[in-house]
């Protein structure tokens, strides 16, 4: 291979786009006469993830595991309590508000429910143009033309740019939300449960669109979903979260074929397969997800873990690499 080619390839693989370092987000539980914080919800407790350029990371876990909080901290909807977020190697907190604002164009989000995330009083073209209004780069862009271009991109009829969101079906609304997220030509698209509010047939269309955009545009994905089939279909890497922490991550084929963490195994075994002959053994987890206000000591999963040992309640397991970037946090492995 030509040395320059191999070097470029190496650079392409290594180019890190977004990285979180020991990210924490605690929400206060207020009480008492002066509504002072009396306790803290540990929504994110030391999350370190990395998304390379052109990669697609799936974040999975049960509700309350912090996956949506992670999306919201990365997009600046919530402030981080501590930790750092690096975008293209630079901390987004370092240069103050202006730099923080400049990555807004590069990191966009699509929310779960397109019935809530689109302003019902704006026409589609206004919805699509809104992200551009704050951007110097797009000053003077023709609004109608841009809207048409974006609608064509997501497979909607550009003639409908003057209509309001309620005139579209759920699947179409999600396309509008995706088009709006793509308006500023972002490098990273965060998809927070993008298909959980739409029907099976519309879901197939939205997934096709996401797969097409991923192939044709220079965009990386962070896909948050509780539907592992969707993650398996779209993503190339995966991070499994439990109670505000990443318990396992790696290439999607490694993690699915050889899950290391007992929680990942239980989670995968619980997905109902559409093959009625499936005889896979189900691991039923006992009890409920513990409260994030007082997370269990030691390994957070030990209260429900079918293979927990006495030391699991004392020792905090670290995320260790078991080869090929496949890491898990469990002392048993």
């Amino acid at each position, binding site marked *: 291979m030509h040395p320059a080619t191999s070097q470029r390839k190496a650079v392409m693989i290594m180019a890190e786009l977004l990285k979180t370092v020991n990210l924490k987000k605690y929400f206060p539980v207020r009480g008492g006469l002066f509504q002072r914080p009396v306790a803290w919800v540990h929504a994110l407790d030391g999350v370190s993830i990395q998304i390379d350029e052109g990669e697609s990371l799936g974040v999975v876990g049960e509700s309350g595991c912090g996956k949506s909080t992670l999306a919201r901290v990365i997009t600046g909807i919530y402030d981080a309590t501590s930790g750092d977020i690096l975008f293209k190697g630079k901390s987004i907190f370092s240069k103050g508000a202006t730099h923080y604002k400049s990555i807004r164009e590069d990191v966009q989000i699509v929310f779960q429910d397109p019935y809530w995330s689109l302003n019902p009083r704006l026409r589609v073209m206004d919805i699509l143009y809104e992200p551009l209004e704050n951007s110097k780069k797009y000053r003077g862009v023709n609004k109608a033309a841009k809207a048409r271009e974006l609608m064509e991109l997501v497979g909607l009829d550009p003639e409908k740019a003057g209509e309001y969101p309620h005139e579209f079906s759920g699947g179409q609304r999600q396309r509008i939300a995706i088009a709006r997220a793509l308006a500023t030509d972002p490098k990273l698209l965060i998809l927070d449960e993008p298909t959980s509010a739409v029907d099976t047939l519309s879901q197939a269309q939205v997934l*096709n669109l996401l797969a097409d955009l991923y192939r044709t545009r220079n965009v990386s994905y962070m896909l948050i979903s509780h539907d592992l*089939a969707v993650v*398996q*279909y779209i993503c190339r890497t995966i991070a499994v979260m439990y109670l505000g922490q990443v318990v396992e991550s790696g290439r999607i084929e490694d993690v699915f074929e050889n899950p290391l963490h007992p929680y990942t195994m239980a989670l995968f075994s619980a997905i109902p397969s559409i093959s009625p002959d499936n005889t896979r053994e189900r691991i039923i987890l006992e009890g409920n997800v513990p409260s994030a206000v007082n997370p269990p000591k030691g390994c957070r999963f030990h209260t429900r873990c079918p293979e927990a040992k006495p030391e699991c309640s004392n020792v905090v397991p670290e995320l260790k690499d078991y080869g090929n970037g496949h890491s898990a946090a469990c002392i048993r492995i």
Partner: protein
Amino acid sequence: MENILEIKNLKVDFATFRGTAHVLDIEDLCVREGEIYGIAGESGSGKSILALSILNLITPPGRIAQGQVIFSGRDLLKLHPREMNGIRGEEIAMIFQDPMASLNPVLTVGQQMVITIRQHRKISAKEAEKEAKRRFEDVKLPDPDTTFKKYPHELSGGMRQRVLIALALSCGAKLLIADEATRALDVTIQAGILDLLRELRKNNGTTILLITNSLGVAAQMCDRVGILYTGKILEEAPVRDIFKKPSHPYTKALIDAVPTANLKDQRLPNIGGFVPDPIDLPAGCTFGPRCPHVMEVCRRTKPERIGIGPDHFASCHLAKKSGDDNG
């Protein structure tokens, strides 16, 4: 096995300002004793209306226009309201999607159990409490004595759903209608509830009508599955046949639309269009406008329900009657 429930020519309409919405049109649906029958369909297909009409709970502007719901030999739609109240809970019980909305927030779950049990049986409060705790054990609620004193908001989603199942079974219902009972739950919690339902069927012989929008849940739970679209059952078959040999184009489209890892880098089949407006349903086959194999006859004539195999029915002009293949 005998049929515990038979629905014949059931039609449910809703009067709206724009016209009459035809939301349910079930030609023939039988649930056999001891089986888990699954109704699978997308939102708006009429799944919940079907559940409500079995219990005769359709309220204006909706009305049951015609049809029969025969349960253990009696037509439920012709019963006196007082008789019907005796059936609800005692013989047919229902669990709903959102357990928080179905439980009373100002009473402890134990009080609600006792009230329900004493509504149907003449026993003392003490005995009812014992009975309630026994039911809590049946649904594997941890520590029944403590749970008994808790309010719904103190319980997690999975536990609330277990309380609802305990309530539903507290009077020994023979038929349990589960309307999207696990939709609001996480997969790991869902797996536990589904396991519980399977066990109840096995141990108590409870017949379950499982309404779901998840094909995965239907595949893992049911003996037979009916596919609902625009209020009509387009295909009905034993679970293996539905998933291995789907005959209706809509069933095929639904199954193909489920993403899997082997499909990576392949496009999912694309069925365009939308679920039609129930006020203005297309003539002929209601799936016709979206069907990839639509023919001229589909636009004019409503397809009949025909048997294409043992227990396998489809309403499609393309479906062949069993035996036709060779002749």
